[in-house]
């Protein structure tokens, strides 16, 4: 009797915990959606911000964020793919393999603001680049590097050895094997990793706020140097003026747009992963 009672109690506690978690998370999303929807209209999306963001729209912030992650992808993807191929196909020494894993996981564990500080010291001060959106892209690319490397490495490394041997047995050189076998079969995982990484990169504030963004008054940069405005840093200044209802409203609007872009990336990543699983089952 007693055991039955504690079983029931335990199950109720679990359900309760789940309910609390789910309600909290639903609350989060609905707060963003309902507050955000009120701020969003065509004018908000298509005009520039005025009065430190409290008035006007977020057109250049959207453009700036997209520009940042676009270049992040351009820099990070080839670098990560090359690293993953090297680790999986060329690196044979067991200790170096282990060391490389530690380095990659270590890079993955570095808090995002540290990347910002590194960028500030190394690029802005040592290399004297000044505040530059391109430096922001480089830093974001470094930040998401381990994500892409690990995803690519996992998918490349899970290609059965027989594929490599079959290709080699036909007389294909290592580079042809990489091009014909490794890349076509590993690219799906690499792209999933890229999407996960970009979903994270576009929402990050801390790495770019000292080095790549200005708070307002900037349009599209015409060269590699010079700041942009971006959605996360825009939300940051607006939430520091949270007592002003107009600023707060615009902050919610920007948040909804930002979260939509993030979700587009992460949902594509989910689908690309599901598709991969289907393909590999066949």
């Amino acid at each position: 009797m007693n055991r039955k009672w504690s079983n029931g109690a335990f199950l109720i506690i679990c359900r309760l915990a789940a309910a609390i978690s789910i309600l909290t998370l639903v609350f989060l999303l609905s707060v963003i959606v309902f507050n955000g929807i009120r701020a969003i209209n065509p004018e908000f999306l298509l005009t520039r911000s005025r009065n430190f963001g409290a008035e006007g729209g977020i057109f250049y912030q959207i453009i700036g964020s997209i520009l940042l992650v676009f270049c992040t992808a351009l820099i990070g993807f080839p670098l990560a793919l090359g690293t993953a191929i090297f680790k999986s196909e060329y690196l044979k020494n067991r200790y170096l393999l282990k060391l490389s894993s530690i380095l990659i996981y270590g890079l993955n564990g570095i808090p995002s603001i540290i990347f910002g500080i590194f960028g500030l010291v190394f690029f802005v001060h040592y290399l004297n680049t000044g505040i530059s959106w391109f430096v922001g892209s480089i830093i974001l690319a470094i930040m998401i590097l381990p994500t892409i490397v690990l995803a690519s490495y996992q998918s490349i490394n899970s290609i059965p050895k027989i594929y490599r041997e079959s290709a080699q047995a036909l007389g294909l050189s290592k580079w042809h094997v990489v091009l014909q076998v490794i890349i076509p079969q590993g690219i799906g995982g690499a792209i999933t990793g890229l999407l996960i990484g970009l979903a994270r990169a576009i929402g990050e504030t801390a790495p770019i706020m000292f080095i790549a963004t200005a708070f307002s008054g900037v349009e599209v940069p015409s060269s590699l140097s010079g700041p942009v405005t971006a959605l996360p840093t825009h939300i940051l200044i607006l939430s520091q003026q949270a007592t002003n209802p107009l600023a707060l409203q615009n902050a919610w609007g920007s948040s909804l747009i930002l979260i939509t872009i993030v979700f587009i990336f992460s949902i594509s990543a989910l689908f690309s992963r599901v598709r991969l699983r289907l393909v590999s089952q066949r």
Partner: protein
Amino acid sequence: MSAYTNKIVKGYVFGSTLISAAVIILILTVLFVNSYDAVKEVGYGLFTLKWNPSDGKFGILSMLYGSLAVTFLSLLISVPLGVLTAIFTAEILHPKYRVYVKSGLELLAGIPSIIYGLIGVAFFSVWVGKLFDLQSGRTIFTAALLLSIMILPTIITLCDDAFHNVPQRYREAAKGAGLYKHEVILRGIIPIAKTDIAGAVLLALGRALGETMAVMLVIGSIDKIPQPFYNFLVPGQTIMSKLGREIAESAFGSLHFSAMIFMGVVLLVIVLGLTVIVQQHFKTGRLYE
């Protein structure tokens, strides 16, 4: 021709690896070099309570305390909630819903921290202020509450995986021995999933320690250890929120700047240590998310 292209590919993959490795080493070197001034000039003074750059006082202990307190408190809330929720999703909920739950959690885990910050400013700090009748709702407790919600999805998915990875035969064997569901879970499954859960918690710990934006907006930014030290309903400061607020104000090359970097290094060492431990001993295998 083929030998030539062979070299190009080799050069490309080797080059990328070198750059990746160089970046990591560069980051560490830059941070260590820049914190050296503070270590040399201030020395043990770094581990004192007072932070006042105009006086040349650079004690980081208040911030360190803040970081640890916020993290501890947030885990205190999120770990029990997360583990129990994961028991629900993995063991009680019908498996056909699992894919939706997992996808939803992964989406939620991706919400940018600045948006959490905004929610904290607009709601949590107001609520905490009203509830405890405080002058300002921006307190250590508010930050911890916000942080615990931030890391909740991560803890739930990782723990759900941990439970899910326990082979079905253990459940069957335990059920076959006539155990009730709660006994199956508590005595059969949790002991096996224990290490993975520990890995999940350490991972969440690392994330919480390194969080900047959300904490910075709601913690109140006062560089003091509360009196008494367990009074969390007062403003505080963490290392990361301090960096976020002050690094842009300090002049590059100054002692102030160097001390800030030193603070970052202290936290980085803790977080990296955790990461390496998790990777070496727990092998959660999903660290890239």
